[in-house]
């Protein structure tokens, strides 16, 4: 019981300092994140930042990932977006987001109309069983979204411990 009062005071002090901490963060975070095992940005924050107020269309993306992956250290990801890939209307960017990894932003691909097809592939690390989210931005400002669960048997040890 006696230690309750100091705790409350500490919480109040912490809250008072918070606005400054929140303001200072964006400047330092970009450089500091490199040497941290966990991003200061959550999955929800990352998705909100990429959407920038736009409502995603839940169609137009073929996300090919294994339903079950034995090894989270290397998971094949193939993304195909339905697009004519013309100069006027093409896929500009494809983002891979992870719900449970320490860093929600896994990769960003930047394409031009010269790609001919909006089709990219890579291999990613997954810390644990989770949903993979893909956002595709078109040159007309639309955003497409796809999501797929991957069951991971042996997770990538992304926490560094």
């Amino acid at each position, binding site marked *: 019981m006696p230690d309750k009062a100091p705790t409350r005071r500490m919480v109040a002090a912490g809250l008072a300092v918070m606005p400054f901490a929140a303001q200072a963060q964006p400047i330092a975070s970009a450089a500091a994140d*490199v*040497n*941290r*095992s966990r991003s200061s940005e959550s999955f929800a924050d990352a998705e909100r930042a990429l959407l920038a107020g736009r409502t995603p269309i839940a169609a137009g993306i073929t996300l090919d990932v294994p339903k079950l992956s034995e090894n989270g*250290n*290397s*998971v094949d990801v*193939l993304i195909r977006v339905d697009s004519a890939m013309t100069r006027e209307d093409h896929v500009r960017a494809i983002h*891979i987001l*992870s719900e449970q*990894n*320490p*860093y929600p*932003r*896994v*990769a*960003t*691909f*930047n*394409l*031009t109309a*010269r*790609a*001919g*097809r909006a*089709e*990219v*592939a*890579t*291999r*990613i*690390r997954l810390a644990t069983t989770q949903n993979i989210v893909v956002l595709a931005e078109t040159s007309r400002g639309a955003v497409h979204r796809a999501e797929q669960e991957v069951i991971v048997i042996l997770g990538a040890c*992304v*926490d*560094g*411990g």
Partner: protein
Amino acid sequence: MTDITARVTMPTSARKGEIIEIKVLARHTMDRAVDAPGLKPSPRRIIHSFRASYAGEEIFRMALSSGIASNPFISFTTVATETGVIAFEWLEDGGAVYSRAATLVVT
């Protein structure tokens, strides 16, 4: 590391207008930052960017994170427009840049 072991897989020739697939695989540990208790802290050392240019014009770019598997594999496409050099660059933490180039003959 002074150079990178990399393999580029793409056709050597294509018809004009044909969409070709380019696959690149580099040998790299993609070391994550370590700062967990009981472990010696070490900085992140990954390939953070990859880019490809075709006859001098950038056609593809990728931003990689520590969430990309070691020995990063990347596959993308491009339209064969003219005979020229397709150049690839891997950018590593710390400023090192590794490059490869391949010529595509367009008929």
